[in-house]
């Protein structure tokens, strides 16, 4: 099997000379199991297919339709001449060579079934490269340019990984059967190029790092006693005392400031997502479940979810393990009623405005495994029901989000906003009867 296609797309969002984009695609598949040389293993291998595809797609989803046209917007009452205030025309940013954003996707995979459908396997390797992503080069172009900067086709990101699905179904007897399946996705993304100033410190650059990473100051411990305080000896913009967080001084200048910001870890998009689902059927009984999990994911706690007494709020229980003179090895820093950004423990000033907590202390591993769904049901036999004039009767109990295993504090691991201001996902219990006459 082989397929090829070529798209020629034109978009009114680009100048006539840049309007057309050609996007080819190829795909091929080979059912190996139907070849004669596979006859020997036919009893165990029912089906085997190897497939691959490569293709390009263009996107013209850019802000506004006319980025390529030099345009002017009317300004009423712009400037007075001779006592009359006149209207003016203000030039807009434009980019005459704005062009398609191109995504190149490669997929290689296989599908296989063994032992008369007892096991099924699907595997995919994927790689996507998105090039010419529109971005404004505000940090590269000097302000002496003198105008609003247009978006340019400069960004590039890469996303690759694998997907794996395994399924096992078995009928043990006429009354008893079960099925188990698992899926696993590993996806790693990376910023290949983003406009950055030429003199950006390597530790703070986004290039080569995952999208949505956390940047800031790296916490290296708590000042537990006077000896630690003396040996730490860093200058920061805020007074520090025993029980405060220490930060890594990457440029070794004795000060904790802008120059010590660095890449800390990946962000709140998990690299690994997996699920395990299964079911057992015995006579009229049915039990189904779904576990869902994610790992290689982090969340940066902030505001009420992280900080003691934030916004006049209260203190969460993990603070029981805080530094005090009598408990110098506490995991948390000393308790302070000052939960504003201007304290050493929540944010070092001079850094970019990441909100409170621009340091690694508040970043937690947000991996989790959750019993997402479980159902127990019983379907009555039609023979019994027929006498009562009932065609179908099913009794069931379902539960959602019943159990969660995670080390993350105070917020839900499926919640991408870690300020503690939103409802977590809720556990739901349902009991029901489905009756049909």
């Amino acid at each position, binding site marked *: 099997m082989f397929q090829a296609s070529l798209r020629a797309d034109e978009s009114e969002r680009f100048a006539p000379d840049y309007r057309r984009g050609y996007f080819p695609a190829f795909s091929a598949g080979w059912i190996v199991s139907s070849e004669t040389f596979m006859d020997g293993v036919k009893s165990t291998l029912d089906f085997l297919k190897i497939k691959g595809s490569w293709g390009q797609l263009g996107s013209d989803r850019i802000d506004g339709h006319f980025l390529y046209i*030099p345009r002017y917007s009317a300004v009423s009452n712009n400037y007075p001449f001779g006592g009359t205030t*006149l209207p003016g025309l203000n030039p807009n940013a434009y980019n005459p060579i704005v062009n398609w954003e191109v995504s190149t996707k490669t997929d290689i995979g296989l599908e296989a079934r063994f032992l008369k459908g007892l096991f099924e396997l699907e595997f995919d390797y994927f790689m996507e490269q998105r090039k010419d992503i529109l971005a404004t080069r505000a940090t590269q172009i000097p302000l002496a340019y003198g105008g609003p900067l247009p978006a340019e086709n400069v960004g590039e990101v890469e996303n690759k990984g694998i997907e794996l699905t395994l399924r096992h179904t078995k009928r043990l007897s006429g009354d008893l059967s079960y099925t188990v399946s698992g899926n696993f996705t590993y996806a790693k993304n990376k910023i290949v190029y983003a406009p950055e100033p030429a003199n950006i410190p390597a530790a703070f650059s986004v290039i080569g790092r995952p999208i949505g990473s956390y940047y800031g100051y790296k916490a290296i411990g708590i000042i537990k006693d006077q000896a630690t305080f003396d040996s730490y000896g860093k200058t920061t913009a805020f007074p520090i005392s025993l029980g405060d967080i220490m930060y890594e001084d990457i440029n070794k200048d004795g000060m904790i400031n802008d120059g010590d910001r660095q890449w800390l870890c990946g962000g709140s998009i998990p690299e690994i997502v997996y699920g395990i689902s299964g079911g057992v059927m015995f006579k009229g009984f049915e039990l189904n479940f779904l576990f869902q999990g994610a790992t290689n994911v982090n969340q940066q706690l902030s505001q009420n979810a992280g900080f003691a007494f934030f916004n006049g709020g209260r203190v969460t229980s993990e603070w029981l393990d805080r530094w005090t003179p009598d408990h110098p090895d506490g995991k948390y820093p000393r308790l302070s009623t000052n939960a504003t950004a201007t304290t050493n423990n929540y944010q070092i000033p001079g850094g970019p405005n990441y909100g409170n907590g621009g340091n690694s202390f508040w970043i937690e591993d947000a991996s989790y495994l959750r019993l997402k769904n479980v159902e127990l049901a019983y379907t009555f036999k039609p023979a019994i029901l027929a006498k009562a004039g009932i065609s179908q009767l099913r009794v069931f109990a379902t539960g959602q989000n019943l159990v969660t295993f995670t080390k993350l504090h105070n917020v839900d691991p499926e919640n991408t906003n870690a300020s503690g201001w939103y409802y977590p996902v809720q556990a739901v219990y349902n009991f029901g009867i489905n009756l049909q006459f």
Partner: protein
Amino acid sequence: MLARKLKWITGIAIIATIAGSCKKKLLDIFPSDSLTDVTVFTDINVANRVLTNIYGTLPNGYARRDQNPGDAGWSRGMSAFAMAEDDAEANNLAASTHGLNTGTLPTTWAYADDIWVQNYAVIRKANSFMERIDAVPADEALKKRMKAEARFLRAFCYAELVKCFGGVPLMLTAGTPEESIIPRNTYDECVAQIVSDCDAAAADLPVVMPAADLGRATKVAALAVKARILLYFASPLNNTGNAPDRWSNAANAAKAVMAFGPPPGTNDYGLHPGLLQAFHG
């Protein structure tokens, strides 16, 4: 095999032809809520509004008062700094401008940035206007005057920048973002550019504007900017060798302005007949 290949090629050719012959007009859409470059620079009255906008972009905020940081109005103007010199006394000692007096400006002090941005905004608009105005079908004398106004505005903004920062990058075209990555020019180069712009503008600007155009740049305004920048050029800060010709150039440039002043000048720029009214309105 060859036949198959040929079929392929024909197929592609057909698709390409269809795609190519698609009504080009269909995609040639123009915005209806704003004017395009083409529309603007075919009508002198519309182009004139672009010139009005360049005037409207001039740094304002010449009010002599202190406002809160973040209020764009005051920080654009040099005169906010009046409080930091002898012209005014700081009544608000917590005002960031007062930091100039006490020498406690933090590195994050953003107002210098605003002066930079605002003057370069005028410069870019003026460059862009000068590049396009010649192509507009209109009376040549009017176009000449308008172009000279833009040239004056460019010179004026460079003079403001040079006053603050010394040598600055000379942007003389409205180029691409890439083209704006250039090093600073020297103070001498900047002064030479300002003087040549002032001379060129003065040649094409009238001494006085008609009543309806009061407020537009005049010949005398151009000569005045030139005189002021040449004076700075001659001052000991920039004239360490005390070259006497810089002083004579400054004096001559000032004299050229005075020629339009009160008698023995032409009195085009005379004193107000009732001096008191000039202040009381």
